[in-house]
């Protein structure tokens, strides 16, 4: 691989790489606002200026302060060039920490803060704001301007999800480019010049496409804020767990940002993975974290003679074992919403230990749940793990819950062990499930828990570690972020508990035991923590 020198260090590059991208691949950051690895080059922030050694340097005449003469004298300085725009060449020598570069960075930073409002205490970006970070790293002085800053519109509604603050904006145009290049919707643009520069909506439009929250994510400052996350949490109190989105079969890599004090998930944001989601996520995915806390099943439910009683989790587990005890013709319903581990253990308990001969799959129906795929990230299937559940069952295709209802009607089944809340059909269609004892392990209320005799609450993907197989057949792992409320355990642990009460020994206690017993799926391809090897900036999958 050809190399060039950056501050004396050899950096390999591929043909066509710019200086900043080649450095970024090596984990070296050249400070920047407008450049984004997934977007086109704008070169408008001027923060990434570097000095490039040349045989014929372009020298700019300047007036430099001379300390001895106590006066300005004529001098020259090399012309600096934006690292985000200049392509690398073999043997090129680049200096990103020379005196001129440091001066330029400091000057750019001073300009960017010239009219910036004193908003940090009320700004959601504080703590992860590039203006703050780069001020500490590259400026560290106060501005020299003493006049009133230029005031611009604040709190402008950019649609249902985004609020824009023009005063905080550094006009990097990342949001405009994101909408143009990734979404293909020119809904944002820029108006006026200089001090009065601001981002605006296309006439008659709102920022209402499916990737609006991404504009907030690419914003390096607090200009665009998400109405969902606004004023909810301060980012320095949050911790992150690498995870995978539950929203659809694409399996976008995410970080689950949670507040460890309250054990509450506060937001999802994309985790870079060029093989899956590049740098992006859709709005539905980013908002899917609400599911972790909203409308959860927190207690067990036992139905007897038509009445539903709420019971503690332990009693529910016992009731579940009782319901399955005398079954001779059990059916197992796996879930496209649950991890491979959950599906595997439920299947093992149902089929291998309790002798079930019928296996079905509970999955959401995209059409019925109002889901639409697109060409960017959103898969047509809104179940994150249909492929995984099918693989676990070891068949080409699993029959749906409608087939289960038919089988019950035909008298082939005398009990059901189901995983998850999801079923493609409505409760009316599946009414036959009422006829037999039915144990449902579920995170949320849904069709299956509604039709169950015994419901045992289980943990969501934020509360347990596991793996999903996405539509491309990639196995991706997610890690537990928060603790499950009220002693709730993962579905696989719950299934083992039920089996133990029924007198079976699974010799599996912990997640590694389960994974060791599981059939080999494709090796988990979670994103590396270092900057991923970037592919073409296109985000389509």
């Amino acid at each position: 691989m050809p190399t060039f020198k950056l501050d004396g260090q050899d950096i390999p590059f591929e043909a066509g790489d710019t200086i900043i991208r080649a450095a970024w691949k090596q984990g070296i950051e050249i400070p920047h606002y407008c450049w984004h690895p997934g977007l086109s080059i704008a070169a408008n922030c001027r923060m990434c200026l570097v000095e490039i050694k040349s045989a014929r340097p372009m020298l700019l005449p300047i007036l430099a302060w001379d300390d001895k003469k106590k006066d300005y004298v004529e001098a020259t300085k090399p012309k600096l060039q934006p690292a985000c725009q200049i392509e690398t060449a073999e043997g090129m020598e680049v200096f990103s920490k020379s005196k001129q570069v440091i001066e330029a960075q400091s000057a750019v930073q001073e300009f960017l803060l010239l009219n910036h409002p004193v908003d940090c205490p009320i700004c959601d970006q504080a703590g992860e704001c590039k203006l703050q970070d780069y001020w500490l790293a590259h400026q560290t002085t106060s501005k020299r301007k003493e006049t009133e800053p230029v005031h611009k519109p604040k709190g402008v509604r950019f649609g249902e999800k985004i609020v824009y603050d023009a005063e905080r904006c550094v006009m990097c145009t990342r949001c405009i480019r994101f909408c143009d290049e990734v979404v293909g919707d020119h809904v944002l643009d820029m108006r006026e010049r200089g001090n009065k520069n601001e981002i605006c909506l296309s006439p008659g439009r709102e920022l209402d496409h499916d990737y609006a929250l991404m504009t907030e994510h690419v914003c390096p400052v607090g200009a665009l804020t998400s109405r969902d996350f606004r004023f909810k949490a301060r980012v320095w109190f949050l911790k992150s767990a690498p995870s995978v989105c539950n929203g659809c079969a694409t399996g976008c890599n995410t970080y689950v940002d949670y507040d460890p004090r309250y054990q509450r998930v506060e937001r999802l944001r994309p985790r870079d993975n060029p093989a899956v989601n590049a740098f992006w996520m859709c709005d539905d995915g980013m908002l899917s974290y609400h599911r972790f806390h909203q409308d959860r099943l927190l207690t067990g439910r036992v139905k007897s003679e038509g009445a539903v009683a709420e019971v503690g989790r332990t009693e529910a587990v016992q009731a579940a074992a009782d319901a399955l005890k005398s079954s001779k013709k059990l059916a197992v319903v796996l879930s496209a919403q649950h991890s491979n581990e959950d599906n595997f253990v439920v299947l093992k308990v149902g089929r291998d230990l309790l002798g079930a001969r019928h296996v079905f799959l509970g999955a959401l129906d995209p059409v019925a749940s109002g889901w639409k795929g697109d060409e960017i990230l959103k898969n047509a299937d809104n179940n994150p793990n249909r492929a995984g559940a099918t693989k676990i069952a070891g068949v080409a295709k699993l029959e749906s819950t409608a087939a289960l209802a038919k089988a019950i009607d035909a008298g082939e089944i005398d009990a059901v062990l189901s995983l998850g809340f999801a079923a493609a059909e409505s409760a009316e269609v599946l009414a036959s499930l009422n006829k037999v004892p039915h144990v449902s392990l579920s995170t949320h209320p849904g069709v299956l828990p509604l039709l169950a005799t015994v419901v045992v609450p289980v943990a969501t993907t934020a509360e347990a570690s596991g793996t999903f197989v996405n539509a491309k057949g990639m196995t991706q792992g997610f890690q537990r972020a928060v603790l499950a409320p009220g002693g709730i355990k993962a579905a696989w642990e719950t299934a083992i508990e039920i089996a133990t009460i029924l007198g079976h020994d699974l010799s599996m206690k912990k997640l590694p035991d389960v994974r060791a017993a599981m059939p080999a799926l494709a090796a988990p391809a979670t994103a590396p923590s270092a900057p991923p090897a970037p592919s073409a900036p296109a985000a389509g999958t």
Partner: protein
Amino acid sequence: MEPNYEALDDDGQLELPAEPMRLNMGPSHPAMHGTIRMVLELDGETVVDVDIQPGYLHRGFEKSCERGTYNQVFPYVDRLNYVSPMLNNVGFALAVEKLCDLKVPERGQWYRMALGELARISDHLTCNSAGAMELGAFTPFLWCIKARDYVWDILEQETGARLTHSFGRVGGMAKPPTEMFKESTLAVLPAVEEAVLEAESLLLKNRIFLDRTQGIGLLSKERAIALGVTGPMLRSTGLDFDVRKATPYLFYKDVDFDVPVGHDGDNYDRFMVRFEELRQSISIIRQVLEKMPTDGPVDCPDLRYVLPSKEAVYNTIEGTIAHFKIVMEGLKPPPGQVYSYTEGGNGELGFYVVSDGSGTPYRVRVRPPCFHNLQAAREMLVGDMIADIVPTFGSVNMIGGECDR
């Protein structure tokens, strides 16, 4: 060895055992300042051997420093040598400033010297007067502590706290000097001088005091050096080593002062060295107050390390960012390590600070003068009488907070 009660002879007479008696002294003994345990081996009343066991005041100070920001260390260092907290504050601030390559403005440096020397006065007054009290001389104790209270009044006026000031900051001090600092300090110094003079007049012609200090608790110059003894204890053996003279920091090279030394390294010499140092401190303070500018900044203006003024925080974005970064993440010295040392109340107070570039110290190690001085105590006690333990140990001036950390 316990006396054998069963072997009482017919007269009911108790046989004194011929072997040395083992006696436990402390940790809850009034003379074992700051909880020290001594296991004595006694032959009659003569100390044959003594096992000195520190550690009863261990607070995990060094480990505690690894979880906050650099400025959050100051309350901890207050509690090292808690008789002269300001010296510790300044010592730690200098260490971090060395790491960050910060230079504190002139006024701030003079201010640090003045407050530090006031702390030294408080330290020596406490040590000497408590030592005298333990020998039965209560009056000099009361007079000296009265003078110490005057000193603490000034420290309270400047810092808001009499004892644990937490007043040092990386790159400066928490507040600039008050308007009446010079005036009130100059007013107090004569009272201190008078108290010292009166205390001396009561003690130095007192047979009991002299008998119990002169020739007692001897420490040779060679052994003192070998054991790493510093401060007044080292100087009492006749060596004129003082960090303020040997490697001057702040503006100590610009003030005129003497380093008093003793001859024999006995209790009397240590006592006298401390009283003389106290007078030197007073002289230093007078010079400092004369040279300290009345105007100008106390804090280094580098916003990376020093909190901006509230006015700047509320009105400029740079001030807000600086405030946010320093408060939420802590100031971030460049990665590296330093050893920085100053003359504390009891000798060389060293801070070894390692930075990994984050806002939290990677390691803070203290070289407490007391710990090394305490090493010498065994040699000073062996051979003397049991009653000599009290004045000798008192003159070592072991401060538990610093020794055990």
